[in-house]
């Protein structure tokens, strides 16, 4: 079910002198089954934007349509929207509260008013999807490691079976291994279950490998909205707004400048290797 943002504006601090125009005329279409990267420097408005997607914040002007219905209509069921658009906040492990992992994951589906059986089934499935072993299910969530806690928190949202999963910096504060594991797991979810995933990040490197579309935010506006290779062509403009293209882009650009006729549109290290080998005629 597609999500459409139509001329969305959001201003913090109302009519005081400290008012901040956090979102400036945002127009986006989030279709089914897409893997999207939402990139922006700190304070670019990306966290504010994602809070609009499930109705936590109400736009100052403009409208948001889910499956054709205005989500701020008085007769619109917000609770249902929140189960369909799952939002995982930054450091989601800070929201854990139950006595054991399993009951915490049950919190979401229970709030949807599902039967006990259905709730537990969903919780079990969700925990399996994030790759948590059975042995942790009845431990206190506070005894787990950082990476495990984060998986539990993501499972807590997954158990509501969202059509769109939004993750705000899911890798913040994790070591490289934990980061890759979480991102691989999310990519797997997207591929196997066909849900739309919006990955919020400030690192191109993280998202380049996975996403099929990149939305670049700057100062509350959408700067670019395109396929990664198209966005990375603007690597110089990206630098100007405090972002960077993946290192591979820089290497390929440098190679081309030195006279090697490589295709600079590759985005991952593996593609870059194949491209260099192709040009060199090794393969």
């Amino acid at each position: 079910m597609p999500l459409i943002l139509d001329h969305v504006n959001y201003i913090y601090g109302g009519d005081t002198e400290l008012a901040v125009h956090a979102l400036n005329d945002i127009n986006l279409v989030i279709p089914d089954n897409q893997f999207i990267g939402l990139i922006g420097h700190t304070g670019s408005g990306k966290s504010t934007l994602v809070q609009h997607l499930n109705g936590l914040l109400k736009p100052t002007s403009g409208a948001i349509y889910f499956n054709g219905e205005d989500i701020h209509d008085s007769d619109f069921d917000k609770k249902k929207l929140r189960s369909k658009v799952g939002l995982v906040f930054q450091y989601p492990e800070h929201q854990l509260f139950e006595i054991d992992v399993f009951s915490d994951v049950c919190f979401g589906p229970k709030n949807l008013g599902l039967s006990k059986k259905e709730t537990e089934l969903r919780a079990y499935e969700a925990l399996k999807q994030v790759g948590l072993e059975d042995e942790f299910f009845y431990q206190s969530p506070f005894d787990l490691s950082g990476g495990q806690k984060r998986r539990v928190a993501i499972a807590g949202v997954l158990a509501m079976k969202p059509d769109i999963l939004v993750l705000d910096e899911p890798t913040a504060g994790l070591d490289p291994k934990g980061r890759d594991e979480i991102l691989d797991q999310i990519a797997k979810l997207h591929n196997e279950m066909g849900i739309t995933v919006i990955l919020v990040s400030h690192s191109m490197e993280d998202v380049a490998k996975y996403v099929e579309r990149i939305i670049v935010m700057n100062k509350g506006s959408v700067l670019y909205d395109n396929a990664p290779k198209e966005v990375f062509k603007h690597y110089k403009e990206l630098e100007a707004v405090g972002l960077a293209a993946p290192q591979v882009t820089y290497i390929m650009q440098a190679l081309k400048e030195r006279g090697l006729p490589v295709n600079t549109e590759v985005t991952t290290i593996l593609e870059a290797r194949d491209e260099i080998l192709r040009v060199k005629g090794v393969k």
Partner: protein
Amino acid sequence: MLRDITLGQYYQADSVIHKLDPRAKLVATIAFIISLFIVNNALGYCVAAIFLAVVIKLSKVPFRFIVKGMKTIVFLLLITVVFNLFLTPGEALVSVWKITITKEGLRTAVLMAVRLIFLIIGSSVMTLTTTPNNLTDGMERLMRPLKIFKIPVHEVAMMMSIALRFIPVLLEETDKIMKAQIARGADFESGNLIKKAKSLVPLLVPLFISAFRRANDLAMAMEARCYRGGEHRTKMKPLKYKRCDGIAYLVLGCYLALCIGIRVVT
């Protein structure tokens, strides 16, 4: 919704009041509160109102901002007024069924309301124009004589500044956790009292855990910097009285004298 709490907040501005020594402001606030209890007639309150208005004008804090903080005490104000209005015995003014409003009741109700409003405005002017750090510095300095009675003044001041420092942090944290749980379908608004209280568990547990985590981190960071209490501790910016503080004390003295004068004469 949580951001509406202005009581005890600091308002950044460049004004004479902002620059005053926190000790002077503390003493002035206490003196102002005492003056409110000294005066007991309309003239006295007019003088207090003028004094307060001038201070607010000098402080460059928008009046609207101060009034916003008053919202929190509306309920308290209402109870005070209602009780004084209906329960003071005396000469009847209006009488409907069993309820009587007396002349004395009306008088006390109005006086009490004015007193309370001035009291709150007066103390919020102080907190709006003084950073929490400055405020506790001033308090520590003013209470230093209490050390003779073995009162750990520095430690108390430190605890206060930490508590004040963490109010906005915890408010923000509450907001964040609330949103996270709403995103998981939690409902903090509907249902009866028991259901509402129960729905707070997913908010309070993470909040307490985060508060403890922060406290732990802070204690560790203080230990790492060899903090060991107030003994032999010096300040980077020691408090020093300037000329404007002297003038402030002088003005304050005149004001107090005027209040006492009004009380004695009338």
